């Protein structure tokens, strides 16, 4: 059974600081996704990571994937208030065309 663990569950950050969210998963997978969810909203796709060593960056967010360690990280650089949201990693089950197992989410709160 594929299990996905995310930590921390809650993160309070000061504006301008850097931090990293970690996502560990239990079995091999074809790909890993990072999503953002604002309160009462659906999931917004941030990154799709397809292979070992993949690194993608968008603005202040950078995601990486280490398939050997079964670990992905989402690094936040110089946080701003607009980044406050819940972030989920999701791992695709091999050969199932997008069936996902999600982590429990990291609720990020950026304070002034």
């Amino acid at each position: 059974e594929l299990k996905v663990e995310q930590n921390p569950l809650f993160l309070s950050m000061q504006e301008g600081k850097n931090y990293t969210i970690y996502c560990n998963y239990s079995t091999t997978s074809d790909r890993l996704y990072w999503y953002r969810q604002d309160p009462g909203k659906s999931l917004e796709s941030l990154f799709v990571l397809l292979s070992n060593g993949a690194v993608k960056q968008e603005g202040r967010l950078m995601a990486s994937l280490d398939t050997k360690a079964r670990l992905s990280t989402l690094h936040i650089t110089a946080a701003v208030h607009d980044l406050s949201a819940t972030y989920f990693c999701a791992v695709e089950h091999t050969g199932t065309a997008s069936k996902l197992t999600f982590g429990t989410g990291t609720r990020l709160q950026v304070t002034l």
Partner: protein
Amino acid sequence: GAGVSQSPRYKVAKRGQDVALRCDPISGHVSLFWYQQALGQGPEFLTYFQNEAQLDKSGLPSDRFFAERPEGSVSTLKIQRTQQEDSAVYLCASSQPGTFMNTEAFFGQGTRLTVV
């Protein structure tokens, strides 16, 4: 349409009532998924369709839950005799498998079901 559309956005049901939740996937998307997201949790897989075929229903929590996609496009998730533990946001997602790069799932805005 441009994205995955779900209706209704909000549904309040009395315990024991039957409900039906609708999902309109992105036009042409072959795969359709239903997920259940309880408050403060990540989404959990319920069921998966490829066209009209329901290939995986391992996540449905009980036989009160039933999903269909009779013409391979619109899907309905039906919950019979709703219970309070069914209160959650029900998310629908669609994707277009076939090319390696294009299997990303796109999510609708969800239906928030509250059972009272």
